[in-house]
């Protein structure tokens, strides 16, 4: 993805580098895969594969306490798993940044993705997370940069919803 092909994940990676984000945790999603690959090739970034998204909240807070900035990558279906864990950065005023690849909205094929897709911004806002959203590739870098600065400058939680329109809706074929 890097090099000749311009990809918006490169813009996210640049923000990580500029803001010294050195830990990236995730439950993988196809929308994040190019970014995960970029981070895995970078010796200065630790990539932690989680078994559930909520553990990325605690991991991120522990890392920050120890002096490292991190970001949690997940799909919208993972946001619901994080609800109570989000109390931790909230009550401790620890900066928390998550990037959420959206499902269940633009041209979704799988009906099971719709409930959590619809609930994602509401759930985050219910837990005092500042929600940013990006629908266009050109604005990804500036939006992630703004969200990260919001989180780390104000000691709050911030999420960037990366829209399905931008990522592209996967159409499944039977057989």
């Amino acid at each position, binding site marked *: 993805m890097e090099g000749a092909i311009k990809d918006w994940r490169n813009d996210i990676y640049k923000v990580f580098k500029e803001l010294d984000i050195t*830990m990236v945790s995730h439950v993988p999603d196809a929308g994040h895969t190019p970014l995960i690959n970029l981070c895995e090739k970078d010796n200065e970034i*630790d990539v*932690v*594969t*989680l*078994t*559930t998204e*909520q*553990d*990325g*909240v*605690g*991991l*991120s*807070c*522990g*890392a*920050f*306490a*120890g*002096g*490292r900035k*991190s970001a949690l990558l997940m799909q919208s279906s993972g946001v619901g798993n994080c609800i*109570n*864990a989000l*109390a*931790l950065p909230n*009550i*401790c*005023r*620890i900066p928390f940044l998550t990037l959420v690849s959206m499902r269940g909205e633009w041209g979704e094929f799988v009906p099971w993705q719709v409930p959590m897709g619809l609930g994602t911004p509401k759930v985050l806002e219910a837990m005092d997370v500042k929600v940013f959203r990006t629908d266009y590739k050109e604005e990804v870098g500036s939006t992630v940069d703004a969200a990260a600065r919001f989180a780390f400058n104000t*000691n709050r939680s911030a999420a960037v919803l990366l829209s399905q329109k931008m990522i592209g809706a996967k159409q499944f074929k039977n057989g």
Partner: protein
Amino acid sequence: MIERRPFVQKILKNRQSNLRVVSGLGTSTWDLMSGGDDKANFGFIGAMGQAIPFALGLAMAQPDLRILLFTGDGDTLMSLGSIATVANHPVTNLTIVVMDNESYVETGSQPTATAGKTDLEIVAKGSGISNSYTIKNEKDYDRLIKTIYEEEGPSLVVAKCQAKATPLVFPHSFDGSVSINRFMSTLKS
């Protein structure tokens, strides 16, 4: 069975300067605070299930320190997957001590899964934490101290202890931002 509070207090009383201690919510935090106020401790009072991932992040960020997590079987059972994450992103400086009283003591001593068929030492080993063992009485203190300060982690020690309610000992503040900032003042970033 281990009497948990004096056991924890003994570890704290003899602590070395390179140790930072985290505790999971509930009795583990009251145990930790019973050893006296110390900025080098951080106790959860909520966010059940998050103590292990927090300790992992902290251990990764502070590789020159030894990180000790006291937590309960209830907290651990809520996030069993985090044990697999710890095993696969090895941190040599992390010791998890599960104070396993086989019950949710704070809510009326309902039995946990470890009162039944679940063995957290086997869970840890099966998850890939090879340095995992169970201790059942105070004479295992020296072995645990060696694990905490000297052995290559990650380690998970199951400390079978009495299921009895002990007096609550509150931290310096219930405000997490106060607690974490005091704790962070003991760390070099």
